[in-house]
């Protein structure tokens, strides 16, 4: 019986080393490539007809498109249109990674904190650069709420700076922790089924079904939360509150 943490192990398939770093093609890399291939082929296939009245698959692709477009319109506002390709890629990548991870025996790319942190860090740097390019030094207004008494700056500014710097960590940990805990829980509960036998094993099996449904929901919700927080940060960088 495999341990609950075994599913997160990264094993090299093709060993590669560049400049002293181990960048081997691993099972994690394989699933990243699979997810990208799945997504690209789905969207290419779904949008190939360009019919005026959409086919079923085309409708699915268009619903995704409209959902992300609405997310940007509602949360980023004016000037958000040009970030649509990035936000769309981000949401679809996370959603696919989370959902493909639900297939038994597959690998959940987003359950690795380095992966989620890599994304969150790029977003953090990108948003900060966009903010400075848009507002120059005015961007620092972000660290002091408009209209608060001046003396509160002593308390508020450090708090604001810390919470700003914590963003990539909270963003990364939220997704990674949700995915990891869910998959560990599934494995642990599943581990009870066989030892308890047919009679008693029904109970953890029922629980397993319920948790699986919950995990599917969490997979979608966490992809959405990650994306929408990115939109919120982008909004702040573009419009300063």
């Amino acid at each position, binding site marked *: 019986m495999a341990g609950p943490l075994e599913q997160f192990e990264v094993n090299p398939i093709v060993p590669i080393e560049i400049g002293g770093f181990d960048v081997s093609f691993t099972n994690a890399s394989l699933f990243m490539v699979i997810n990208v291939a799945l997504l690209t082929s789905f969207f290419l296939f779904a949008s190939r007809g360009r019919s005026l009245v959409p086919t079923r698959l085309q409708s699915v692709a268009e619903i995704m498109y409209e959902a992300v477009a609405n997310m940007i319109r509602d949360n980023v506002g004016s000037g958000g249109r040009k970030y649509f*390709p990035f936000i*769309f890629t981000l949401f679809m990548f996370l959603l696919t990674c989370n959902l493909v991870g639900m297939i038994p025996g597959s690998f959940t790319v987003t359950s690795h904190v380095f992966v989620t942190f890599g994304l969150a860090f790029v977003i953090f740097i990108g948003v900060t650069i966009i903010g400075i390019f848009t507002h120059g030094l005015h961007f620092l207004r972000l660290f002091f709420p408009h209209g608060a008494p001046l003396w509160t700056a002593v308390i508020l500014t450090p708090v604001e700076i810390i919470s700003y710097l914590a963003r990539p960590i909270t963003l990364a940990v939220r997704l990674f922790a949700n995915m990891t805990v869910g998959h560990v829980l599934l494995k642990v509960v599943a581990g009870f089924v066989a030892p308890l036998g047919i009679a008693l094993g029904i109970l953890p099996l029922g629980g397993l079904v319920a948790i699986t449904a919950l995990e599917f929901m969490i997979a979608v919700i966490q992809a959405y939360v990650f994306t929408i927080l990115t939109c919120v940060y982008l909004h702040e960088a573009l419009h300063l509150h």
Partner: protein
Amino acid sequence: MPQFDPTLFAGLVFWLAITFTALFFLLSRLVLPRMQDTLEARASRIADDLDRAETLRQEAETVRQQYEEALQEARDQARAGITHAVSEMERQGAEREAALNAEIDARITAAEQRIARARDEARTHIRDIAIEACEAASERISGVKVKKAVVTAAVEGEMKRRNLQEVA
């Protein structure tokens, strides 16, 4: 936990960068422009159809107004025609009545003239009969044949005295 094994960092981030960038370019170059075209084409097609529907609706409204105007005009014409016909008939009736009245008057006058002539004739006959009767009566009674002029004078005198002219 394998998640916190620092030797994995480089590999995961490296492959994440490659796959995510690849996905970004695949989606933003191939898929998204295509989908945007499709969605815009659909939106503009729907807008066009709505526009055309509105134009057609307005045309139908114009036709309806024209029809109602034509109907109103026809009604007015019919009413005018009826009024004209009625007044024409009244005029003809009055003319005919007048002609009839004139004819009746003429006949009455003619009849009156005939009556007057008949009365005059009758009066003349009465005088002649009276003269003849007087002649015959005086001859039978007295056996004397009186001269016709005398009898005539007597009869005419008597008729004048009794004012027979009025009676006759």
